[in-house]
């Protein structure tokens, strides 16, 4: 009789430990979000002696995060809706319709991938001022959509090359105009791309701090991370208890989505490699 020896997966255990060590700053944040500031200072690594839910309550009474959370969510939805309609339409007209300018436009949009934000930052603010929309949600929306377009068009064009042309030909024989052909035949086939765009830009906009901070300034209504930043840069002493609670709450939606659909998520983020 052969006895099968159970192999202890030493290597896997070591890697698991390293992985946990790697994300330990997140656990420390979670742990400390339940402590009072005094307790964080005295024993940063211990378990909380009592759960200080006040930290979380203060996010909504003191830091006033509820409205910014709604703002960010609406901004994500608006930008994504704009991107998943304008980008595939543009990609379709560049790739599939025999436009004389098609080749030029492809390169023109692609060039946008190389332009860093620092270069356009100051002139863009000036432009928004001249248009009378400086420091408004509209300005930020316009910026986010234009900023996202080159990458989205790039992703959509790449995918479009894999769709057989016969589909559109038969549609046009059936008397469909080009716009109807796009929406009825092509757009549904682009669903995998659309999911990628939703994941990538949804996460990007929710997490964005820098561009929102520069385009919107620091007054009035805000997106989540700018609001958190405003709160913590106001004070000379850092209220770590509130900061940790804020970090946990704002990372929660993306963490839940990540755990729920890890594979999709990673694939979506990889497609956005170049940004």
């Amino acid at each position: 009789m052969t006895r099968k020896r159970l192999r202890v997966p030493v290597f896997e255990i070591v890697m698991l430990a390293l992985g946990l060590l790697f994300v330990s700053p997140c656990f420390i944040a979670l742990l400390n979000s339940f402590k009072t500031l005094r307790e964080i200072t005295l024993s940063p690594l211990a378990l909380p002696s009592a759960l200080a839910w006040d930290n979380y309550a203060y996010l909504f009474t003191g830091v006033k995060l509820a409205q910014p959370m709604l703002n960010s969510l609406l901004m994500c939805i608006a930008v994504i809706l704009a991107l998943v309609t304008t980008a595939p339409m543009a990609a379709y007209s560049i790739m599939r319709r025999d436009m004389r300018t098609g080749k030029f436009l492809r390169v023109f949009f692609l060039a946008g991938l190389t332009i860093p934000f620092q270069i356009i930052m100051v002139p863009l603010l000036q432009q928004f001022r001249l248009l009378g929309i400086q420091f408004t949600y509209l300005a930020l929306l316009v910026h986010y959509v234009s900023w996202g377009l080159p990458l989205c068009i790039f992703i959509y064009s790449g995918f479009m090359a894999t769709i057989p042309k016969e589909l559109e030909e038969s549609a046009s024989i059936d008397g469909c105009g080009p716009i109807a052909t796009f929406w009825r035949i092509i757009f549904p086939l682009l669903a995998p791309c659309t999911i990628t765009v939703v994941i990538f830009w949804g996460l990007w906009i929710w997490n964005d701090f820098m561009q929102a901070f520069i385009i919107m300034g620091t007054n009035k209504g805000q997106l989540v991370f700018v609001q958190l930043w405003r709160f913590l840069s106001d004070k000379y002493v850092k209220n770590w208890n509130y900061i940790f609670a804020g970090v946990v709450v704002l990372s929660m939606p993306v963490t839940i989505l990540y755990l729920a659909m890890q594979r999709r998520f990673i694939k979506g983020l990889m497609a956005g490699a170049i940004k």
Partner: protein
Amino acid sequence: MGNYVTRRARKVIHESLASLVLCGPALFLYAGFIVTPAILGFAYSLTDWTGWNRTPRFIGLANFREAFTDSRFFDAIRFTLFETALIVFFFSFGTMLLAILLDRLRVFKGAIRGLFFYPYILSILVSALLFQYLANYNEGVINTLLRGAGLGRFAQDWMGDPRWVAYFIFALVAWNGAGFFTTVYLANLQTIPADLYEAARIDGAGAFTVFTRIQFPMLLPTLTTNSVLALITGINLFPQIVVTTQGGPGWRTFSIGYYIYHLGVLSNRQGYAAAISFITFAALVAIAAVQVAILRRRQVAL
């Protein structure tokens, strides 16, 4: 005949209208709010524009000439290149090693890889705050551990100390981005055919030989992509600085990106800021081109 012509004309008009509807919105937004400010930026770089209200005066290449004698700019270049070197090295080779280790997992594969990827989905502000906390003098975890181990005399204000701060900024960038670069390598590793490993095993090759003879050469294309992406990350280092040190202590952590922001948004020297951002952009494109050329040649040689 006439009937044919009008039908043709109508078709042409119809088609161009369709193209306009399809491509118009994207073209308008992209041309209006990415290309226009980029061109305007170049125009501003030739002026002495200082703020919001004054009319800018054309001063030719004076801004560019000033940049080459500006010691603050040189300090920023030095700091940015230091960070970039660390970042490129880690995202090219550190994550390669990590990917090779993760590729050997037999159980808990998804879970362990998921842990290393996780920080990538967090906001830069979140990771910056976490690292600021770790490095904090009084209640920071690093100092707490040091004091606990009886090494309290090594405790310091890591991010306030000019000797250490550069490494902490690197650590923060590395932690945030490692998941991404590792995953790109992992995807490439999975395309290596199994019979190559099999042949190596029959020949009695050890893990190190497998790495130098099979994995490393097969990973070269990804090494090229990753090192260029890492270069861009390094040269454009900016939000991390705004959130953590704001250039301090002193001028120690003024990256080029932060210097541009400082000049353009905080000190009202838009023209000069634009000139510096174009110099940086040109340098980045040049370095990336050389880097790709070198790595490509090596790819061919193998």
